[in-house]
């Protein structure tokens, strides 16, 4: 029996713990923010593919939340990195 779901859960928890530990730093560098945003995208995509089970659905329905997630995270990055 495959344990895919368990591995996904462990990955999600580990990435969340990573984000939490970053939050403890007094100064968060722009590189760390980039890593944090990338891991957020990875977490979201894992939920979309394995929890929502869209991996087994026609590509267009899988792409809707993926494109949404990508756009939101990209625009958050733009807001963070663009000079005022």
């Amino acid at each position, binding site marked *: 029996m495959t344990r895919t*779901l368990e591995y996904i*859960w462990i990955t999600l928890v580990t990435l969340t713990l990573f984000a939490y530990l970053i939050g403890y730093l007094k100064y968060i560098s722009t590189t760390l923010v980039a890593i944090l945003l990338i891991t*957020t995208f990875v977490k979201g995509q894992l939920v979309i593919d394995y929890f929502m089970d869209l991996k087994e659905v026609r590509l267009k329905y899988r792409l809707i939340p993926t494109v949404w997630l990508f756009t939101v995270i990209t625009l958050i990055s733009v807001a963070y990195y663009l000079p005022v």
Partner: protein
Amino acid sequence: MSKQLSIKEPYPPGDFAIWIIIYVEFITFALLFLGYAFSRRLDVELFNASQLAVSQTSGFINTFILITSSYFVVKAVHSIKNMTVESQKKSNIEASKWLLFAIMCGIAFSVIKVTEFSHMFGMGIHLSTNKYFMFYIMLTVFHFLHVLLGSFILFIIYKKTKSHGYLPNDSKGIETGASYWHMVDLLWIILFPLVYIIR
């Protein structure tokens, strides 16, 4: 030469109507997330200073709770989807067990959130305190209402599994509720680093 074909499902799991609702929620929350991100850009110092008043530990625990509850919901869906005529009772019982765990997670999330809100309001922080708290309260209260609705939906499904109401090839109802719950989880996965961590 043998070629393995993977046949994809034509539609997402559950009733398609829930997906329309999910897409609308995506747009609504995207606007709030971006409203927060671009407002922060204009006053980084205020946002960073105000963020110190919120508990990152509560945010982390709540993220852990939602991710775990989503896992439980997937297990419940699998129990129903893999059901046979012979295993109908057993599968319903198994699904009800997983759903109960998920509902308990929903309750735990709610208790932590209510504690956080009462602490914050007790400190005299409200919507008009500053822009950070306006977005913080709007985003987290709005999301919290979705958790309450999601928990209620899971409870309805739980009651049906308790009465062994799901039959083989009848997983649409549980998949519909599960899709909504995963959306609630997905939204929090973005909300947590955005509001609690990034500075």
